[in-house]
């Protein structure tokens, strides 16, 4: 009984089901590419809404949003990955993610073209992203997985959004 509880607790605490047989990923489209994030990190999905621009931030930070009283920064993932930018459409969605930073859990949103599917993935199917040297930034990509005939890039949420925060802090310190 106690063991069972401990196991459950572990599951809750671990970053998703990475050690489990079946992890689930929320996949989304971004400039005809397929990306995925650990579904346990997704707090909610909402339609694109006007945000308040925050001055003196990189352009991929679209601004902040009032999410039931919390001020949540919204990042444009196309711009973050240097993909061509696109007008926001009715399919454009904001995926609100929980990010583990140095100072605890944060809530941040990413703007993606459209949400596609929930992917059940077996941990054995994960492969590491190939090394492109310096040409392609793969540091945010935790691993690759194939779904049907598509390749899905699974993002490391903490690196993607946590790093931004850190680099900004360093920048602030440098100033």
């Amino acid at each position, binding site marked *: 009984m*106690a063991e069972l509880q401990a196991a459950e607790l572990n599951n809750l605490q671990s970053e998703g089901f990475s050690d489990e047989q079946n992890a689930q990923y929320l996949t989304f489209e971004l400039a005809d590419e397929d990306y995925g994030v650990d579904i346990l990190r997704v707090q909610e999905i909402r339609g694109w809404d*006007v*945000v*308040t*621009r*925050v*001055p*003196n*931030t*990189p*352009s*991929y930070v679209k*601004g*902040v*949003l*009032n999410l039931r*009283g*919390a*001020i*949540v*920064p919204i990042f444009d993932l196309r711009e973050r990955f240097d993909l061509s930018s696109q007008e926001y459409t009715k399919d454009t969605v904001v995926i609100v993610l929980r990010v583990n930073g140095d100072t605890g859990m*944060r*809530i*941040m949103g990413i703007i993606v073209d459209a949400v596609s599917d929930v992917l059940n993935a077996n941990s054995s199917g994960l492969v590491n992203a190939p090394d492109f040297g310096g040409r392609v930034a793969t540091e945010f990509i935790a691993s690759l997985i194939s779904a049907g005939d598509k390749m899905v890039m699974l993002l490391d949420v903490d690196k993607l959004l946590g790093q931004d*925060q850190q680099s*900004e*802090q360093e920048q*602030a310190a440098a*100033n």
Partner: protein
Amino acid sequence: MTIDMAQFHQVFFDESFEGLDIMESGLLEMDPGSADPEQINSIFRAAHSIKGGSGTFGFTNIADFTHVMETLLDEMRDGRRQVTAEAVNVLLASVDVLREMLTATSEDAEVDPERVKAQKAELDRILAGGAAAVEVAEPDSTEEACASSEQTGWHIVFRPHSHMMRTGNDPLRLIRELGSLGELSVEVDLESLLPLSEYEPEDSYLSWDLHLKGDISKEQIDDIFDWVEDDCDLSIAPICPAQKAPAAAPETASEPAPKTEIKAAPAPDERREGGDRRTSDRRGSVKKPATGGGTSSIRVDITKIDVLINMVGELVITQSMLSMMGEEFDISQIERLREGLAQLERHTREMQESVMQIRMLPISFTFSRFPRLVHDLSTKMGKQIELKMTGETTEVDKTVIEKIGDPLVHLVRNSLDHGIEMPEERVAAGKPEQGTVELNAYHRGGNIIIEIKDDGKGLNRDLLLEKAIERGLVPSDAILSDQQIYELIFAAGFSTAETVSDVSGRGVGMDVVRRNINELGGSIEIHSEMGVGSSFIIRLPLTLAILDGQTVSIGSETYIVPLVSIIESIQVKENMVNMLAGKGETFKLREEYLPIVRLHEILGVNDAKAKELNEGLLVVVEGEGRRCGLFVDDLLGQQQVVIKSLEANYRKISGLSGATILGDGSVALILDIPGLIRMAGNASSAFSKDVRKSA
């Protein structure tokens, strides 16, 4: 099943630090020679709970250390030891060491074992030294003497106070536990048992006379009574063959079932005699005073919560009234709807106020450290200083309490070091030998005012000016008002102290003091008179969660300027504007030339309506003693805004102090005026271009 003790650690640390504060303030108030037993008792209890807690959680080094302190305090409260100034000082130093140990443990750090050892040795020295000076019989010595001869057991007189069972302690369990140590014979004393009609089932009326035979150490018995010793009269004495136990235990069964045992009723006199001869109820001889402990940061006065609950109740009623009206709304009901909405607004506002109340704590949390500080520093500097504190109960936002401590310490140190003169100097100046430092807190018009006032020598205007000129902070021919000169002490790296002491004089600090206060949204001003004294007046907002703001528009964006920093808003005419070295725009406001900060440039707003100065408005603001004019499109309105942190989910952004949510649900950013002025100073245009480039 094992319980994860770690979850209780925080509570233990909180309580322990609280206990340390009680010990410290108690020790400081203690008069050597004539100590109030109540006071020693409260110090003792604090030490005791720290010891108990640390033992429970396995922090043995803390428990061991506290044990020595406790022993010393125990002897003091029994009157077996004189309360000497030396002992008090050693105890104070021990409190410090204990605090370090607790801090280290809470942070999983290592504490310097040498330091602990040294302090422990110091305590031991006091313990060993003074004991003989007091002629009261040492109970320990009789115990020792007896133990050396053949000791056959212990005679325990256990008289629970009537409330003991309510503390969750069952005497029966204790006795059963004693029984597990050795052969136990029990006598019950029914003397104070009330008639059944007056009997209170939760009170304890019985007391026991216990004889415990066997080779048992006193510690084992103490352990059993550890939790209840404050809730009972207890005496534990060895039974020696030489002095047979006062009353030979009757042959009643050793099985501890005292409540059912009616026949045994030993003579109470005899029992008391037995007690007197030994430790004579040492634990209970001092009455338990009402615990005067302060509330901790996580505790909220229950009345505040009750008020809140009442208000939520009313809110729910109003809400249901409104929704009923909404179901079949008819235009004839418009009056009632308005009424309902007004009611809703009132309830919401009241509720907001009472929620804010929960965050409010008395400023005594901050003030309480000063008696110690003044005590220590004045001894060190050879000055005689009296500290007067008023308004300790003034309630302040919790964040203010946390952040105002260091600046206040700095200001008080300064007053002690620079302000108050040496006694001989004071006498020569015709002032009383003893200097006075006053700490005063009070509310005034939505602000908290904290005053630090001393009757020392005051700020030396000429010396300040001289130093400032020397350092090139002001031009040598500057004519400054007194107030402007006093402001100079807030400049970074400015110090007038001839010698740098470890107390102050490095010139680090006053600028930090001001910055900290500004960060809290407050201000500080100085009044001083040569030879009479000086006072520092800190003005802080009542709460940090709400701010009075002026909404301004720049293009399509809305920003909030804190109302406290706004001096006035003006429309500039071209003839008021001058260029400085071709770049810096300044305008003349009465006799001053102030720089113009174009917000749309510094904030990178592309669609600003007003590009020319005469199209928009200048909001004249002040931050950290510097003034400037913020150029905006328009002023929108004033409103109270709830401050939300940008850092909670993102990061700090220069020029912004936070964000808030406007009535329509959109987010507006709150400007950080001192930060903006600094940014503008760092060649504003270059900065924002850089950012845009990096983006």
